[in-house]
């Protein structure tokens, strides 16, 4: 029970931190408004999907070093397929790329299960493989994106009669919430979701409880691949191109997972925490830019915040235990 309270407390704490940061942002830049919030959400989008991809495998007791490369590959695939194609063609491209992420993720999982090589090495290897594949698809940044796809993350959702509120609901946020919930909520409710937590908590006990460990692990990686593909699409949607070199999503995703209260090692935590953590980290970045802090110092500040928050969490946990 206390454990439950503690975990939800962490997420609540992050939410409070986020709100405090929003207030601080308003203080730094009084004009910070709904449009800027929209920018924030769009910046969050690829990170959020990367983090979702990482969260699910971390809960399952693994780690996925190939998220960034997966995003790069799916992004260049989408961008090069849509390059010069008609607007309608994108209707086919999106599910194709999502399926590709799902399959490649499943391959990750299968390799782990079949070779029995630790997750970190298998996904390190697939990091190179996916990156190589991305370079074969597009040797340099390029490609294009369908206009309508691009429009899905630009602007806000109109709510009739409430223009004030609607300005604060960017389409990108709706897209993010829908994409995450559509997978996460049924999963969390299902036995499969439980199995994912189970194999992360103790593979032996899960096996002995009759959980099909191999299958569950493959599915967890497949879902991670799916989220990765969403992240890749998000990249293409926001930049309008595909870039074969992965951005800084891998380390960011691991950091946000831990900040979000998911234990590296598996079995604990949820998706909400890491997602809020991503918002917090992006907003910190915004504040540092708004404050015009020396760019070299920002690296120090970001590192220090990461360490400090996790240390603080550890400190609370220790206090709680005594």
């Amino acid at each position: 029970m206390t454990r439950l309270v503690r975990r939800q407390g962490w997420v609540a704490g992050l939410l409070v931190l986020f709100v405090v940061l929003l207030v601080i942002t308003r203080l730094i830049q009084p004009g910070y408004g709904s449009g800027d919030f929209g920018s924030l959400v769009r910046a969050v989008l690829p990170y959020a999907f990367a983090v979702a991809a990482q969260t699910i495998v971390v809960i399952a007791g693994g780690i996925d070093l190939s998220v960034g490369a997966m995003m790069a590959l799916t992004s260049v695939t989408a961008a090069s397929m849509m390059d010069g194609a008609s607007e309608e063609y994108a209707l086919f491209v999106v599910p194709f790329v999502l399926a590709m992420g799902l399959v490649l993720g499943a391959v990750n999982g299968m390799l782990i299960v079949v070779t029995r090589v630790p997750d970190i090495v298998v996904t390190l290897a697939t990091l190179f493989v996916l990156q190589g594949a991305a370079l074969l698809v597009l040797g340099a940044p390029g490609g294009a994106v369908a206009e309508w796809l691009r429009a899905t993350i630009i602007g806000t959702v109109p709510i009739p009669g409430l223009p004030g509120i609607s300005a604060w609901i960017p389409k990108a946020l709706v897209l993010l919430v829908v994409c995450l919930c559509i997978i996460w909520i049924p999963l969390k409710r299902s036995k499969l979701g439980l199995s994912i937590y189970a194999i992360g908590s103790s593979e032996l006990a899960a096996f002995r409880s009759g959980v099909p460990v191999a299958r569950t692990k493959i599915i967890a990686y497949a879902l991670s691949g799916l989220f990765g593909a969403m992240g890749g699409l998000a990249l293409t949607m926001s930049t309008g191109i595909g870039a074969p070199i992965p951005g800084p999503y891998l380390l960011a995703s691991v950091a946000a997972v831990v900040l979000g209260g998911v234990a590296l090692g598996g079995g604990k935590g949820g998706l909400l925490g890491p997602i809020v953590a991503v918002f917090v980290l992006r907003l910190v970045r915004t504040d540092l830019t708004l404050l015009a802090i020396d760019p070299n110092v920002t690296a120090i500040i970001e590192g220090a915040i990461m360490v400090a928050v996790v240390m603080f969490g550890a400190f609370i946990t220790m206090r709680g235990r005594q």
Partner: protein
Amino acid sequence: MSISAIQPVPFGRRLKRFMADRPLIPLIILLVMLVVILQVLRPGIVNERWLANTVKFAIPLAILAGCQTMTMLTGGIDLSVGTVATMSAFIMATQVVNHDPAVAILIALVPAVLIGLVNGIGVGVFRVHPLIMTLGTSLIGTGCLQVYQRTVIASGAKIPPFLAWLGTGLTYGVPNALLLFVPIAVLIVFTLNRTGFGRLLYAVGDNEGAARLSGVRYWQVITALYVISSVLAGITGLLYIGLIKAPSLSLAEPLVLPSVAAAVIGGTSIFGGRGGYTGTIIGALILTVLTTLLTILQMPEGARRILFGLIVLFVTAAYLRIIEDR
């Protein structure tokens, strides 16, 4: 089915068991196989000069992989080694302009000790996950290095001839870097197998609670470990700058992921409690030879990376298959 007492064990199984008890042998075989492939693809490449080059480049990787091996034994990881190595190299190269080389080296190792100490306290006392802790300190370190860099733009940089000799020189065709590496390797192997500290690394990584009940103070072990790891990384940086002779702000960063891979290929478990340094050294050699192999192969860069990934996976999988006695 009826069972006669004990059947003679077939040769294949005996061989497997033999290798399982000596995990180094299959690793060495894998290494030799890669070298043979290289020789077949480019006849004549495997010569004295190539060997020396390979060893030169494998050594810094092997030392950093030593840091990973030791931290991984405790269930940790040290992602700050790249930053620490870069820092000590860069600081040494810029300080040596105004100071005696010995002094410059000492100055350069100060941040290494500090980062190791912070890592150790964070992991050992505050129980921050090592991945996050070392990632955080490496970010902080990189930031500090960049700030520092601006203060020394005007002073230029220099590589002391001694380090260049150590990094690049050969004596009778043998890389001088071995003068540094052999003692370090012997020390690490000895520490892991024959000292109390080494025992504790394994114990803490295997079952921290059991170690505690036996009177082991976790934070002491971990703090000492991360300081040692950082100092080793700092020394690697000094050696590496002697090899590359071009101080940059990202000098050793590209070595971080390979150092983890080398330790894992060498049979160290990232979950702690299992592994050793000799395997890691071979792992580092395997990765270095693999890099050469891929450089030599003429193919698109994308295909090259795909191949690299596949080979790493294959090597690790094959190795695990062989040493697993099941």
